[in-house]
């Protein structure tokens, strides 16, 4: 069957143990988690979990139904990437030298990435963009030495009506 990607925006009660219940549901039923991001909403009693998953259409439907069964989950919104605005934040610490400093800075400029910290040999680049563009950034920097990399899961909201 065809493998598709879906984004689940899940409003949950902001209580201890909820993340493990939701993550446990995915692992027990062999659903994929491609990415996961969690944070409080404007209401501090409610958190929003953005889960990106992939699978065939029956699996993707089951994910939504099984999420809806969980008693800590208030609301599940499911949408395609194309219907949403999605962003990831990535921090990349790289080693640089005189010879490639200029090239790195030009790449950052082209990719609308910022240099947010710097020492004599290292710098941290910050990029906030779509999952495709953050992946592209990694590819563009692959020629230089990446010391560390940290990346959030995808955050997504349904496009404006």
């Amino acid at each position, binding site marked *: 069957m065809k493998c598709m990607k879906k984004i689940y925006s899940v409003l949950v009660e902001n209580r201890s143990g909820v993340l*493990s219940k939701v993550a446990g*549901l995915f692992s027990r039923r062999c659903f994929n988690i491609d990415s996961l991001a969690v944070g409080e909403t404007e209401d501090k009693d409610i958190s929003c979990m953005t889960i990106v998953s992939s699978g065939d259409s029956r699996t993707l439907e*089951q994910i939504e*139904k*099984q999420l809806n069964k969980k*008693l800590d989950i208030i609301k599940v919104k499911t949408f395609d990437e194309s219907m949403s605005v999605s962003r990831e934040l990535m921090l990349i610490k790289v080693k640089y030298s005189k010879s490639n400093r200029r090239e790195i800075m030009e790449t950052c400029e082209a990719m609308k990435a910022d240099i947010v910290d710097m020492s004599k040999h290292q710098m941290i680049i910050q990029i906030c963009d779509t999952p495709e563009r953050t992946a592209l950034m990694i590819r563009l920097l692959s020629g230089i030495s990446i010391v560390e990399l940290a990346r959030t899961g995808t955050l997504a909201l349904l496009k404006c009506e």
Partner: protein
Amino acid sequence: MNGSDAMAKSLLNEGVDTIFGYSGVAIDPFWNSMRKTDIKQVLVRTEQNAGHAASGYARTSGKVGVCAVTSGPGATNLLTGIATAFADSIPLVCITGQVDSELLGSDVFQEVDVTGAAESFVKYSYLIKDVKDIPRVFHEAFYVANTGRRGPVLIDVPIDIQMKRIPDYDEPEGDPKMRTYKPTVKGNSVQIKKVVKVLESAKKPLICCGGGVILSGGTEELKTFAERHSIPVVSTMMGIGTLESDHPMYYGMVGNNGHALANRAMRECDTLIMVGARVADRAVSSPDLTLEGKVLIHMDVDPAEIGKNVGSTIPIVGDAKTIFDEFLTVDFECKHEKWIATLEEYRESIHEERPNNPDYVNPTEFVRKLSLAMEEDGIYVADVGQNQLFSCRNVIIRKGKFLTSGGMGTMGYSIPAAMGAKAAAPDRQVVAVCGDGSFQMSMMELATANQFDLPLKIVVMRNGFLGLVREHQHFAYHDDYNMVDLGMDPDLNMLSKAYHIDYFRLENMEGLDSTLKDFLDDGNSAILEILIDPMETVVQRHS
């Protein structure tokens, strides 16, 4: 008032009259508070059986079954009971004691993360960290367990919370308000109209009912509907007893262990109403079997069941009782005499006769005779193994009930579940039917049945083997047996004496009727040991 008093008061508020359990330091404040109530408290001999007994109680009474055990090993022993109830959607509230809340997570004596361990097989769980939450949590737990798709709810209560003073007990009233839980009960009326339209033109309609119909209390509604429109009915194992086994519209149990007649009806029908059944592998040997060329109408209270194992043409989410109530208000014609005539022809021509060894008791005939000898409203509890399949293929349920562990297939279920059934209905006859393997998993409960005046009739089908697995090894490994020979079984006559209960024995079919009568009429708990051919198989492979 302490937390533990509030727990006991909550149980009284919810109308609990019986609780099964085991003690231990972490749950002791609760049991101390329970002394002041008139709730019947049954001390089982191992925690797993508290879960099964609560399940038997729930399935007999229609109320929530309740059990309470201590932390650590008490809680882990209970897990199988919880999982068994979850697999069959049985409403339970399971209370576990927990170590001091200040010490949670530090691996102190008898600490186990039971809410974590049970997460994937409870409907919901609570770990209470504030004594003030007790009234609300208990009220919610009973509501959640017994509404929507029913199931077990776990409440873990640290010992210090049980002992803490609760400033005042606010008695919760009405259904709890939970923004995350609103079960759909009523079927969508547009979908119901669609179904009526389909049935009007259906040539070969069939209803297949699962355990959900009995759980919803909708057996009468379904029966009236099937009778009014002459729609034949088959059932899954969990649905046995929805219609009387000898009802003219009933064609037996489906599935790879089911009746050839019922499976044939499933194959040949053109419109299948699947209600309250998860359509698991055991019910339909291949999930897509039911799809080809059929209109599949799938009704379930749990939206996630619809389309999980089979795709459906018309889904209806709702409680079976409510849906059929709704159907009964609609006037429509549904004509298919030819289909009924065909099924009746099949009923006459399909004979699943099996060779019978006259040196032993014939298990199929025994089950038939036993269920007919039982009182009309008797409760037949089958264990797991060959005994379960002999039972569900041959039992005749009239006004009574058939209980078994369907989804999990938990050996040792029958004796504690029968005990729970007896506690719920002291005036009804309760018979547990097990094998010599499953009997030995729960025989410690003979003491409980005696102590708490819950007289049980226990049939032990003795063949010296774990029969169903032996049968599997017979076919799959060409009689290369391993780990299925029970060797020298205990002497059940002596065991009966040790437990002060009566003992009967049948070595072959001679004297069957009079022995059954003596066994069932006996006022005490009694064991009836019947000898079964060790090489007996449940299903004849050619059928």
